[in-house]
């Protein structure tokens, strides 16, 4: 790829992000603005922003790369990423919005009347956020290396700097505009090159079979792996801290549901393109998988298949979209982590929020610089397994089951964190691909274990169920009165 073109694309995205972030800064006035954009963002904006924030390095680069590597087995990833939002809609969206809480720790503390629960939830949320930022920075390093030839750390450091500056300057209001813009940028940046490549290749007579090509000779995933992966993706989404905080920007429970429906449409349209890119790569550029560049497939595809100035222009567009992905997901995570860190440790001031943002960004940067990427879609899939084993049980049981006690919530979250975290560490030590399936995809046993422990301990500590449970459950589920009600 042509280095100046890649660099120009990167700088353009950074500039656009900064400009929109600054525009937002001028209308951030109160602490409410800072944390949740005052809950006055219209559904379409909000849905675009949710989509923009959710579509990370794993979706933009990882999905196509994994499809190139493992074919139809990898098609479950985009389906799971999208269906996770269906589960969020069914079980979490409206009640969580109605809870009126700012963050997940706010929610668990209010539901269970316990500061200990709050602390454990905060720890888990921070762990999830850090784990999720690392692959974004790996993706940024990969993209900057492929597109400009600069060393990987430049990309990771640049993303952290830009994110920190926009977040510290504008809070969530500006983030909402930035994220909404970035959804459409990401969609364009994948759709235009994919359609162009399709038309370009469409003239060819012979269409190679995607299944006849097995670029890596990897064995097919067994049923256990597929089921475990889907469980992680379906139930991991509803526990992601940056996704949840977005729902607080809806004016009421009904609009939270409407927003989620729009998000599902936006995600469905988006995922057609990485899927198509993966299919194209499998048919026409299987060589990329052999030399370990599969995660760079969407970046390299226009250059490999189109070439010339048209290929350069398309590559620049993809690079811009990729950086939009890293920037938007990372800033969403940094905002929600900064909210949690500042409210719990630093007293909740705007200055505390800025220090929290710094902590939220610098720790994963250090981790990303010290490690190498093991496949973007896979490592993000593991983060989903972790949230599905920790935050998902406490949210689902907290919203739907009166019998949850603080002791049960803590025991369940710790069980899930220890089991799933242990499996992730053990799997990495045993060497990624060669680890046994039950360690590589732990969700199938860690999620049920966390739920079981949470229910059993709650049953055993019935006297600890808070007396406010009826009022809180009412608040979560009873529809808001329309503001302009004549009654």
């Amino acid at each position, binding site marked *: 790829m042509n280095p100046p073109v890649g660099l120009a694309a990167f700088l353009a995205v950074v500039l656009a992000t900064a400009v929109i972030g600054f525009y937002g800064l001028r209308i951030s006035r109160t602490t409410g603005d800072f944390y949740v954009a005052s809950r006055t963002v219209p559904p379409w904006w909000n849905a675009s922003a949710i989509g923009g924030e959710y579509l990370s390095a794993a979706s933009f680069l990882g999905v196509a790369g994994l499809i190139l590597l493992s074919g*139809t087995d990898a098609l479950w990833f985009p389906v799971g990423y999208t269906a996770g939002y*269906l589960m969020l809609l069914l079980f979490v969206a409206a009640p969580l919005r109605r809870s009126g809480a700012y963050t997940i720790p706010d929610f668990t*503390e*209010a539901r269970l009347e316990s500061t200990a629960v709050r602390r454990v939830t905060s720890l888990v949320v921070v762990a999830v956020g850090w784990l999720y930022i690392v692959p974004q920075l790996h993706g940024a390093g990969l993209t900057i290396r492929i597109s400009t030839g600069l060393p990987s750390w430049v990309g990771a450091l640049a993303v952290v700097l830009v994110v920190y500056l926009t977040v510290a300057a504008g809070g969530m209001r500006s983030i909402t505009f930035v994220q909404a813009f970035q959804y459409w940028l990401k969609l364009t940046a994948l759709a235009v090159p994919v359609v162009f490549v399709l038309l370009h290749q469409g003239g060819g007579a012979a269409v190679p079979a995607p299944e006849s090509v097995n670029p890596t000779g990897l064995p097919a995933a067994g049923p256990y792996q597929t089921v475990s992966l889907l469980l992680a993706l379906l139930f991991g989404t509803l526990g992601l801290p940056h996704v949840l905080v977005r729902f607080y920007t809806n004016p009421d429970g009904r609009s939270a549901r409407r927003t989620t429906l729009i998000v*599902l449409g936006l995600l469905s349209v988006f995922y*057609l393109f990485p899927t198509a890119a993966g299919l194209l790569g499998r048919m026409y550029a299987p060589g990329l998988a052999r030399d370990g560049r599969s995660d760079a497939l969407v970046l390299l595809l226009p250059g490999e298949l189109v070439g010339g100035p048209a290929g350069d222009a398309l590559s620049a567009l993809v690079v811009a979209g990729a950086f939009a992905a890293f920037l938007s997901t990372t800033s969403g995570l940094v905002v929600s982590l900064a909210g949690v860190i500042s409210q719990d440790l630093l007293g909740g001031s705007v200055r505390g929020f800025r220090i929290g943002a710094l902590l939220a960004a610098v720790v994963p940067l250090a981790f990303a610089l010290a490690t190498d990427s093991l496949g973007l879609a896979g490592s993000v899939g593991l983060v989903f397994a972790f949230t599905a084993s920790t935050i998902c049980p406490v949210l689902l049981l907290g919203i739907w089951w009166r019998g949850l006690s603080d002791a049960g919530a803590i025991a369940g979250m710790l069980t899930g964190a220890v089991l799933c975290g242990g499996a992730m560490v053990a799997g990495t030590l045993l060497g990624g691909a060669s680890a046994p399936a039950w360690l590589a995809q732990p969700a199938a046993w860690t999620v049920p274990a966390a739920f079981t422990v949470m229910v059993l301990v709650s049953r055993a500590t019935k006297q600890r169920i808070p007396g406010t449970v009826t009022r809180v459950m009412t608040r979560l589920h009873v529809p808001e009165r329309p503001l302009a009600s004549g009654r």
Partner: protein
Amino acid sequence: MTRVRVTAPQSAGRRPAGLLPGRDAAVDSDVGRLYVRSLIRSQLRLAIVVAAGFLLVLAACGLMVALVPDLAVLRLLGIPLNWLLLGAGLYPVIGLAAWLYNRSAARNEARYRELVDER
């Protein structure tokens, strides 16, 4: 213009402001509590039914791709059917499930509202 220092809502016990009490007088009477319970139960039942239906479709697709090898051979517009099914065919199902759920959930809430207002 003067600069104003803004801070997070602070309250005794660090409880986020505005979270309690419940927004309705519904919890103040036995009948009110009963209505709320039945609303929660019907919303949960609805969510579980939609989720189970979707998971069944998902499982059926997975089994079809695994058990019918011909799907990888048959093609529509040059694309093998198994790719079309998993890569594009499931998204409309997700959207349909979400749309149906939204409609029914809103209806449950409207029914609750009517009951409470009649009282």
